[in-house]
Each structure stands twice: as structure tokens, then as C-alpha cells.
């Protein structure tokens, strides 16, 4: 039963992910950068967006209760932005665990150039302390942010992501939150060109993260 529930939640998250506008679902190999037709664009394992998405401007409170200006704090870095919740049984812990495992392999120097930002879509249950405790299971350097539901929904919309959906409560009062399942990867030069849907494996992250950190782009201007 547990497995069925988890799988169905994954399916919901993936389905929500599939609702995003076409800019988020573009696949395939884009044209080579700089008009050099003979230079093959790097092949990323993430899903390359048809159009770049600017790095968003927003400020939310972090787990220490301090304002965190996403644009300023992540400037010049590879930023992996993910919207989820700490009671999530599958998508969120799997993404966080896989990213943490691969970042751990990269070494301190390259690790410094990556900021992983988790934004809660369940502010009612995700207290700052709970978010911190949950993120620390993966990597204490991960940033946890919290805002009210309207703020977080607005940020997601600005990125072209669907806002999260509260599922009906179970008899024991628990509930699931349907949310976009992709991690949005912002390049050091600013915009996002690639997203990583649920199903992205450690091997995929291990392949793409060094490229992202090095500022390699999949060929978009």
C-alpha cells in the first residue's frame, strides 16, 4: 500500500510537471552557440528548454529567519531551484538525495559554485526548524526557504511552473501536496536553460553538474 501511494504521488508530481508551458518542456538538441554550425553543442542529460528563463527576483525567509534574496545570493553561481515539501514521500527526498550525493563527489572547490535552494510548498507544516532538519539529512549547505502560499505560488508562476495543489486530507489529518517535479538549473551567467525532471539519476547529475558549473550552455544565446 505504501508503495502504491508513493508511486501515485510521483505520478501526480510528474503530471503536474507536464502541465508547464511549452518553454519548460522543449526537448532535444538546440542549435550550436554563436552560430558555429560545425561546433556540436554540449549534450546535457537534463531537459533543455526551448527558451531560456531569467533568474527570478524574490526574497523569502531562510531557515534561520533571515531574508534570502535569491538573485543576489546566487549571482554568479549555478543555482538549483526546487519547490517541494518535507513530508513528500518520494520526489523531493529522491531529488535532494541524488543531488547531495553527486555534489559530495565534486570536491570542495567546485561545490562552492553550486547553490541548492529548496522552497517549501507546504508552509503550514514546514516550519523553519523542520525544513532545516530535513535538508541537513542531505547536505547542511542546502538553503531552505519559506514564504506564504501566495508568495510561493507567484514565484512558481513567474518561472512558468504550475502552483502546488493541496490534496484532500486523509482520516488522520495528513495530506499530500502536488507540486512541479523538476529542478530548475540556473547557469552562472544568469538564466535557466535546463530542468531536471523526476527520474534524473545520479549518473545524470554527475554528467551535467560539472558542465553547468563550468558555465557550459546547451547552445542557447
Amino acid at each position, binding site marked *: 500500500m*505504501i508503495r502504491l501511494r508513493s508511486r501515485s504521488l510521483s505520478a501526480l508530481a510528474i503530471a503536474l510537471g507536464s502541465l508547464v508551458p511549452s518553454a519548460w518542456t522543449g526537448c532535444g538538441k538546440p542549435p550550436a552557440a554563436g552560430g558555429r554550425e560545425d561546433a556540436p553543442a554540449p549534450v546535457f542529460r537534463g531537459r533543455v528548454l526551448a527558451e531560456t528563463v531569467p533568474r527570478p527576483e524574490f526574497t523569502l525567509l531562510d531557515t534561520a529567519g533571515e531574508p534570502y534574496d535569491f538573485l543576489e545570493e546566487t549571482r554568479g553561481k549555478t543555482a538549483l531551484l526546487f519547490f517541494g515539501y518535507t513530508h513528500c514521500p518520494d520526489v523531493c527526498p529522491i531529488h535532494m538525495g541524488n543531488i547531495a550525493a553527486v555534489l559530495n563527489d565534486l570536491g570542495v572547490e567546485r561545490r562552492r559554485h553550486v547553490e541548492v535552494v529548496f522552497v517549501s510548498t507546504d508552509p503550514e507544516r514546514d516550519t523553519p526548524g523542520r525544513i532545516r532538519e530535513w535538508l541537513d539529512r542531505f547536505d547542511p549547505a542546502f538553503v531552505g526557504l519559506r514564504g506564504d502560499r501566495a508568495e510561493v505560488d507567484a514565484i512558481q508562476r513567474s518561472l512558468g511552473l504550475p502552483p502546488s495543489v493541496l490534496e484532500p486530507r486523509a482520516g488522520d489529518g495528513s495530506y499530500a501536496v502536488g507540486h512541479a517535479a523538476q529542478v530548475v538549473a540556473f547557469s552562472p551567467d544568469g538564466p535557466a536553460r535546463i530542468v531536471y525532471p*523526476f527520474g534524473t*539519476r*545520479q549518473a545524470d547529475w554527475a554528467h551535467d553538474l560539472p558542465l553547468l558549473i563550468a558555465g557550459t550552455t546547451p547552445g542557447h544565446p
Partner: protein
Amino acid sequence: MGVWALIVVLAVLYARLTRPATGAGPIRSPWRTISFGAALAALWLGLDWPIGALAAGYLASLHMLQFLLVALIAPALLLLGIPGAVWERLAGRARTSGILRLTHPAAAFLAFNLVVLVTHWPVVVDALMGSQAGSFLIDMLWFGGGILLWWPVVAPFPARPGFGYALKIGYLIAVTITMTIPFLYLTFTSLPVFATYELAPPIPGISKRQDQQLAGLLMKLGGAVVLWTGIAALFFRWYVGEEGSVA
């Protein structure tokens, strides 16, 4: 449900095969019945909840424990549990040519190792473990492969006078060596190889990589314990036989 059906079928089959003919004495001995019962217990333990459920979609390490129970332990105990009289009866009825070929040590060795390699190949695992039918197919391949593996060592039929204790011991040692291949692959690959377990809801206290390394170690160490127990038993029987013939 399928697990219980399999166990009931095996138990009924055993009861029927070991039922003494009218007027004849009992053909079951207590230790053979215990051995057969232990085989069924190993199957049940490996295939039912919790090991079966967790092995199907959560932990590669439990998938490997399941492999040990279903492919190595249960088949050996099951074959050991069959009384000599039943083997004689089977020898009289069976089409010996097919069994001769299938249970030839070389064929059994190849079949078991093929099953081990194929059923631990990530593409196959990920393709089959997603469904109950696929998962059941892997279980049955393990069980069938295990029966073939142990048959030349345990079963008195078909008689193979040329395949004595020394060769049986060598045969089992060779299996410990071939099982090193998946062990090395699982234990020393830095990234998770099975999407089934990597993308499963995490189990607290064990990372995906630790789980995979534990799976490799279980295969090597657990497999070694089972196979070397068999080797030790063969050596002991060989020694006792030699002593008897000298006396």
C-alpha cells in the same frame, strides 16, 4: 498471494510424492521433512512481506538477500528434503534424456551463472521489477536456476559416478568465483546502477550507494557462507566415506 500459492503447491506435491504405497513403511525421514519445511520457510521469507515488498521496489540489499534465500538456500534445502525412495520413483518415471542434459554439471553451471548475470543486469532489473509479473519472473528464474545449480551436487538421480566429491567441491568453488563478477560491479561502482532502487522512496538510515554496496557484499559474503557450507558438508561426507572404506 502468488507466494502462498507456490508454497501450497510445493507442500501438496511433497505430501503426495512422499506418501507411502499401501502396506509399505514410511518413506519420509524427520530430517528430510525438516529440510523441505525449511526450504518452504526460506521461500516464504524471501518472497513475502516484508523482504519481498522491500526487495521489489525499495532496497537493492534486500533484493540480494531475497536472491540468497530463493536461489541458493531454498533450492538446496528442497532437494535435500526429497527422500531417496522418491528419487528412485522419479528415476523410474522421468524422461531421463532431458534431465540428463539439463542437470549435467556443465549445463547447470552455465544456466545458473547466466541467470545470475542476466537477473542482475540493470536494464533487465529495471525493466522487470516495475511489475508484479516481472518481479515474479525474476524470482522463478532464481529458484529454477538454484534447483539446477544444486541438482548435480545433491540429487542422486541421474547417477553420475564420474562426478565425485572432488569435482562437486570444485564445481561449487567455481560458482563462488563467478559470483564475484556481480559483486565487484555492485560494490565498486560509484553510482547507483539500478534505477528501480535509486528512484525509490528513501529508507531512513541508508543511502542509495550504501544500499548498493551492501547488496554487493551480501551477494559475496552471504553467497560464500551458503556455498562454503555446501563445500564443507561435501568434504565431511567424502572424509567419512574414505574412513569407512579404510575401516
